[in-house]
């Protein structure tokens, strides 16, 4: 199958990219890894008349830490994120999610920016980023703005990003000492799998190494967008970490989930699995928070 006709642009800077994007707003799509975009175009699910490639824009494929803030470049590939020691130390949930996205071939192409902007409910990098409390940095003709990721996703495939805007960075607070992350993905295959349910958790412990100081649990494939489970976080904070409280958090997360029946699985099974995977993700996060 051939790609439909389109005009290809390769701007050399962020400013130029925003300019090109503004010029064709509404008719242009941003090309990063292309693992979703090109497939959708081949299937005629999308037919943008202009593609704006980010391949020529420098500096979008780096991660850095600066003054309590961690920045992840949107062009970083899943394969790079999965293997990066910096990401493992500063945004571990993202590394865990990136490592199980698609297949080895897809991971070398797929980017975190694409994963977030495509806004699929089960996206393997979006769900961890939500647990990390990430913010999307959008650059447009009128400058930059920051949007919390939980406000960023609107529906399947839909975000608050305006057609003339570009996701130029993902930012989050640097992890407090005693923070750990977990990521759990449930599917029938070990590769090329869209999760039946996926759960990411971030857990920070007080100095005593036991009491939960902060927690975020994010859920995938159980709502039109990746969602946070505020009920789960609520029961965790202030409690001593451990199996029972994780189980209780799992139950709360299941209550926060809004799964539907579809051809990939039934709603009741997904809800049950949210409880199971939440407890597991929290256990995993706890082990890492304790430095194991």
């Amino acid at each position, binding site marked *: *199958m051939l790609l439909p006709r389109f005009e290809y642009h390769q701007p050399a800077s962020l400013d130029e990219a925003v300019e090109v994007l503004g010029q064709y707003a509404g008719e242009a799509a941003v090309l990063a890894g292309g693992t979703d975009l090109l497939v959708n175009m081949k299937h005629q699910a999308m037919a943008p008349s202009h593609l704006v490639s980010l391949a020529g824009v420098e500096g979008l494929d780096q991660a850095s830490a600066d003054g309590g803030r961690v920045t992840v470049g949107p062009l970083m590939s899943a394969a790079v994120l999965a293997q990066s020691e910096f990401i493992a130390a500063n945004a571990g949930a993202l590394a865990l999610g990136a490592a199980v996205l698609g297949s080895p071939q897809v991971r070398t192409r797929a980017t975190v920016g694409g994963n977030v902007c495509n806004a699929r409910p089960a996206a393997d990098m979006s769900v961890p980023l939500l647990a990390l409390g990430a913010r999307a940095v959008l650059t447009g003709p009128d400058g930059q703005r920051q949007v919390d990721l939980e406000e960023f996703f609107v529906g399947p495939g839909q975000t608050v990003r305006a057609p003339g805007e570009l996701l130029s960075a993902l930012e989050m607070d640097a992890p407090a000492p005693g923070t750990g992350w977990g990521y759990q993905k449930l599917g*029938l*295959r*070990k590769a090329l799998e*869209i999760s039946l349910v996926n759960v990411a958790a971030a857990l920070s412990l007080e100095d005593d190494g036991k009491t939960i100081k902060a927690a975020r649990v994010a859920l995938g494939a159980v709502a039109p967008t990746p969602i946070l489970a505020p009920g789960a976080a609520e029961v965790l904070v202030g409690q001593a970490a451990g199996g029972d409280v994780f189980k209780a958090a799992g139950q709360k997360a299941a209550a926060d989930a809004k799964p539907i029946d579809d051809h990939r*699985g039934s709603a009741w099974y997904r809800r049950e699995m949210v409880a199971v995977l939440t407890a597991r993700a929290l256990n995993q996060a706890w082990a890492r928070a304790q430095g194991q």
Partner: protein
Amino acid sequence: MNHNPKIIGASIPRLDGKDKVTGRALYTDDLKFPGMLYGALHRSRLPHARIKKVDTSAAKKIKGVKDVVTGADTPQIKYGNWRLVPGSQDELPLAVDKVRFIGDEIAAVCAVDRETAIKAAEAIEVEYEELPAIYSVEEATAEGAPLLHDESPGNVSLTREISYGDLEGLLAQADYVREDFFKVHAVSHAYLEPCSSIAVPEEGGRVTLYTSTQTPYIVQCLLASTLDIPENHVRVVKTQVGGGFGGKMEMRPWEFAAAFMALRTGRPVKFTLTRSDELAFGRRRHPMSIRSKVGFTKDGKLLAKDFEVMLDGGAYNAMGPTATFLCGTFGNMLYNFQAYRYRGRHVYTNKPPASAMRGFGAPQAAFAQESQMNMAAEELGIDPIDLRLINAMETGDVIPDVATISSCGFKESLEKVRQVSGWDAKRKEKKPGVGLGIGCFSFISGGVFNWFNTKYNFAAAEVTVYPDGTAQLNTMACDIGQGPDTVLRQILAAELGIGIEKIRLVSMDTALTPKADLGTWGSRVTLMNGNAIIDAAKKIKDMLKPVLFDHLDLNQIHEIAFEDDRVLVKANPKKSMSFGECVYHALRGRRGEPLTARGYYTPRDKGLVSPAFSFGAQVAEVAVDQDTGLVTVTNTYTAHDCGVAINKMAVEGQLEGAIQMGLGYTLSEAFVMEQGRTLNTSFLDYKMPAAEDMPPSTYVEVETYEPEGPFGAKEAGEGLAIPTAPAIADAVYQATGFRALELPITPEKVLKGIGRLK
């Protein structure tokens, strides 16, 4: 017996392998012809409807469209592979009066490019009178159910019955009787190459079809009959084929449409399907509803079996009649018992037709049979392997009305798999969430039945040898990825005593290769074509032997051997000449007439089913996540009697592929359907296991010598696809206490089964 071990039993990599992995191999869709047009199909949007009107006017007006045809334009001749039973031929290339599944082909177009063809196909408008549709065998056979085909009351197109022995009497005598119901589902062949065909018009109203098929000769015959032209006007050429698994063994509507429009337009026409077409409308494995009742003595001797199967055939017969027949045969393989009753019914439903698929009825029958053996073993208090050993077939056993087993390594397979899997120790050690289970199999090495009603031998080969020491093999045998292009050359090389690299292969062109061959199915190619090749090679050797007698003035008591590219006196190997030199002298002696010989094979006096049967046993080890219900197969152990393995590497490849298919069948693959419509039409949602899902696999060869097979060989292609489902189901039971009687074993079913969820 096993002469030339350098070739027979060696692990020789595929001779076509390099071209395939480097992308040089040409598949049908790679071919282009000058002036070639692109075809597209208009398919039914309803599962069951009468066609009131087909309006093609809008399609014809589109620029670039060269032809549009509907059923009304065609000769309207029904076809099907069972030519011997014309009433079973229930399919038209393009529908005329009725459509019976979503995807039923109604019209075809061809245009200067693919996009225009698709646009034109979409512009065709069909006026339907919608009819009530049925989606299961239970609905289809219920009283008052709507009929798909007027000729088949009750929607049953074919019934096969087998009955011998005193069934009722023995079941009454039995110490232990059990009756179980099983349900198995449809899965896709999921061959990597979607179907593609190109028809090229030739002079005199003839046509050449390049096509992705596993049965070119059958396509030639059925294409000629549906086009209403002589068989010899149709030439079918098989290109490289990226897998078939039973899904490419019939003539298909796009082959007809390509040829029909090529003849009308005078231009080549190509059709290539997409993955989404294949998954939405393609052939699939038969779902079956199975009832099995068995009686044992308290010591575990199986006395009698009552086996009833309803096959969900979808909208047309396809290869369903053969599957219905074979299911009855597979229902009484592996074990000896005195009384058997089989009733198989092939039932129409408004779904894409089911057809042959790797195992041809056996994976379904064996899921029931082998699961039931495991269940009976537990209740009888006998180890499942011991229960099988008590009842296992042996060489020389007779299956009433079917065959005498001429070689059987089943008991050895059971013993070996017990040993390599660590069965005795692991089954005793009960660990929650971990289990070990067993399934066994037997399969045919080609079919004796001739429902296609070929007038030719079942397999043929033509061998020519040259003074430069090389040979040419012309054969209709069909390599669809399973390896006969290599294996058959091994057989010829071994028989002629020349290197495999010396053999040029001309394969599968119905105009150039000797008549005839029934194609690749029923695991027939190695045995049948191998025998035909040996027959031809022996005739060649008879042409060569006199040269040595003449040149060396040999006493006629001598025997001549063919080894290492030389022809030699067996008792005195120093007396020899090169193979090429021998051919040279023979050619001179024949005053220039080439040394060409034809060989044939047709199984004769080999019963009603198959000339030979493979056997084997497989143990699967699983880990079940008791919170999610997810089953992971952690190991498999297989012992297999395929007679003498001609190419060990090829047999191991078959095993790996079979385990991959078995995993999918058992755990993850299924069509999600709603009102006759398939919802999961991509590999993202159709969950075929990927490389990372493959468990480690231990393989033990149980070598027997099959007297009917070439160099003692039997089948290795399909039998291995049978045992995995019952083995995994048994392992899941050992791990969780949940006995799955229906496939696939999904996490949801496991959780419900172990009582974790309601």
